[in-house]
C-alpha cells in the first residue's frame, strides 16, 4: 500500500490525518452552529447537536440489542420513547487494594454519596473488603432464561406497564430512599486479608487482574441480592480496545467475546451489558464537561505508573499513542471485536453443564489436546521451572544453568520461573 519509492505527490503516507482548515468550522449536522467539538477524524458538532447525537446513540444501542426493555407504546404519539427501567447505582471502594488511606476513602465516598443522592436512584457503596464475606454461591453461575430469543419480551413489557401504573410518585420516592445502602464498614480481618492478598502478588499485572475479578464477584452478588437482572458497565470504546488487546496478552483470548462484547451472559441470571462501548473516551469526557455531569477522580492501582509497569498499562499507552497518529486505530479494534460472538452451547437437560473457571466464571477451555495454545503454555511453564540437577539434560536445562551462574540452585520458586 504505502511504498517508500513511489511518489505520492508529497502526501505523507505515514499519517492518516488529512489537514482540513478547522478554524471556525460549522457543525456538520445543523450547518449553522459553530462547532465546539470534533470527533473521529472530521465530524464536528455544535453543542446542541452533540447532545442529541450522544443521547440518541445510547438509546439506539439499547434498542438495537433488545436486552433492556423499552416502553413500546407511548402515552401519546408525540411523546418520545422513554426508557422504562429502574436503575440502581453501585460503587465499589477498592481503596484497600490500591493503598488509599481510610480518610481518603471516606472523603471520596462522602462526595459520591452526595452525587448519588442527587440522582434519586437507589445506590450501593460497597467496600472491596466485603468480597471476603460473600457466600461461595457467587462462584456458581445462576440459571439463565432458557429462551434467549424472548417472545416473553412483549409480555414482560406489558406486565411492566401494568405494574408501573400502581405505583404513585410518593411511594416510589420513599421506597427508593429505603433501599440505598452505604455499607462501607468492613472488619479488620477482611482489611488485613485484602492487603495480604494484594501484597502477595508480585506484579502489577496480576494485581490489576485480581482486582477486576474481585470487583466482578462483588457486583454480581449485590445485583443478585437486590434482584437486578442486568448490570451496566461504563466501558468506553477506547477502554475496551485496550482491554481486548491486554486480554489477548494475558491469555484470555477464548473469552474475548464476553469480556468486550455488548452483553456478557457468563453469570446466567445476571447479564452484564456495556452500553457505552460505542463512545470514545473523548466523547464521554466532553459530554461530562459540557453538560456538568458530576465526577470524582479516584486514584487506582496504576495511576501515575510508568508505561512498562503492567501489561494493561503498556497496552493503554500503545493504543493511545498509536491513535494519535492513526485516528482509526481504536475504531478498527472495536469493529473487530464486534465480529466476535459468544457461542451459546445448546442447552440440554441430560448433558452436564460445562465446568466453569472459579475466578472468571467463563467456561473452561483447558480440556484440549496437545496441539493447542494451552498446552504450549504448560510446557513453557514446566521448562522455566526446571531445577538444575542433571548436567546431562539437554537444552532447556542449559538455559536454566546460564542464569544460575552464581552457583546457587534454583529455589522452589525457581529464579527463572515466570511470575507473570
Amino acid at each position, binding site marked *: 500500500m504505502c511504498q517508500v519509492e513511489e511518489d505520492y505527490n508529497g502526501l505523507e503516507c505515514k499519517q492518516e490525518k488529512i489537514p482540513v482548515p*478547522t*478554524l*471556525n*468550522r460549522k457543525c456538520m449536522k445543523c450547518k449553522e452552529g*459553530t*462547532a*465546539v*467539538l*470534533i470527533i473521529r477524524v472530521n465530524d*464536528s458538532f455544535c453543542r446542541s447537536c452533540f447532545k442529541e447525537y450522544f443521547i440518541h446513540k445510547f438509546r439506539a444501542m439499547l434498542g438495537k440489542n433488545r436486552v433492556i426493555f423499552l416502553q413500546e407504546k407511548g402515552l401519546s404519539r408525540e411523546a418520545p420513547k422513554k426508557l422504562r427501567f429502574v436503575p440502581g447505582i453501585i460503587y465499589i471502594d477498592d481503596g484497600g487494594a490500591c493503598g488509599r488511606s481510610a480518610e481518603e476513602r471516606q472523603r471520596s465516598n462522602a462526595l459520591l454519596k452526595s452525587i448519588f443522592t442527587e440522582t434519586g436512584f437507589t445506590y450501593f457503596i460497597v467496600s472491596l473488603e466485603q468480597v471476603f464475606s460473600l457466600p461461595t454461591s457467587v462462584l456458581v453461575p445462576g440459571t439463565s432464561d432458557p429462551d434467549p430469543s424472548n417472545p416473553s419480551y412483549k409480555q414482560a413489557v406489558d406486565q411492566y406497564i401494568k405494574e408501573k401504573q400502581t405505583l404513585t410518585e410518593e411511594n416510589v420516592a420513599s421506597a427508593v430512599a429505603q433501599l440505598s445502602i452505604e455499607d462501607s464498614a468492613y472488619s479488620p480481618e477482611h482489611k488485613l486479608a485484602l492487603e495480604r492478598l494484594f501484597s502477595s502478588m508480585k506484579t502489577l499485572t496480576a494485581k490489576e487482574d485480581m482486582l477486576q475479578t474481585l470487583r466482578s464477584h462483588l457486583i454480581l452478588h449485590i445485583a443478585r441480592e437486590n434482584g437486578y437482572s442486568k448490570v451496566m458497565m461504563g466501558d468506553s470504546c*477506547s*477502554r475496551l480496545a485496550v482491554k481486548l488487546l491486554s486480554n489477548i496478552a494475558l491469555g484470555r483470548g477464548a473469552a474475548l467475546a464476553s469480556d468486550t462484547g455488548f452483553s456478557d451472559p457468563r453469570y446466567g441470571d445476571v447479564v452484564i451489558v456495556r452500553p457505552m462501548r460505542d463512545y470514545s*473516551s*473523548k466523547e*464521554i*469526557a*466532553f459530554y461530562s*464537561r*459540557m453538560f456538568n455531569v458530576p*465526577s470524582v*477522580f479516584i*486514584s*487506582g492501582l*496504576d*495511576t*501515575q*505508573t510508568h*508505561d512498562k509497569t503492567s501489561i*494493561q*498499562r503498556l497496552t*493503554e*499507552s500503545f493504543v*493511545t*499513542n498509536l*491513535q*494519535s497518529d492513526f485516528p482509526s486505530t481504536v475504531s478498527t479494534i472495536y469493529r473487530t471485536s464486534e465480529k466476535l460472538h459468544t457461542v451459546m452451547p445448546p442447552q440440554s437437560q441430560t448433558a452436564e453443564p460445562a465446568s466453569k473457571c472459579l475466578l472468571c466464571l467463563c467456561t473452561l477451555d483447558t480440556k484440549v489436546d496437545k496441539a493447542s495454545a494451552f498446552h504450549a503454555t504448560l510446557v513453557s511453564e514446566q521448562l522455566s521451572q526446571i531445577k538444575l540437577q542433571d548436567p546431562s539434560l539437554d537444552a532447556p536445562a542449559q538455559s536454566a544453568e546460564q542464569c544460575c551462574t552464581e552457583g546457587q540452585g534454583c529455589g522452589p520458586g525457581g529464579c527463572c520461573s515466570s511470575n507473570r
Partner: protein
Amino acid sequence: MLSKLKLHGGAELLFDGVKNHHVTLPGQSDPWDMKQLLAWIRGNMLKERPELFMQGDTVRPGILVLINDADWELMGELEYQLQDQDNVVFISTLHGG
C-alpha cells in the same frame, strides 16, 4: 496576560492536586500561543513527572484540551494564539493518570 487553567480526570495530580489555577503570563511582544503556554506550564507549574503531561511539544496523547469550552483541534491546537482571560482545561482520559 491572565489565563485560567483547569485540570480534571487525574491531571490535577501532577499539579499538587490543585484543579483551578489563575496564571499571569509574563508580557512579551508576540502573542502567546499554546505551544509556548505548554512550555511555560512545564517549566513553571508541573511539580513532577512531566512525561505524564507532555510528550515533546504537545500534550500526551489521551489528555484532552479545551479552550473556552471548545475542542482545541478546532482552534489550531498548538498554533492557537491565547487571548486575555482565556479558559484552558486539560482533561485526562487515561488510567495511568
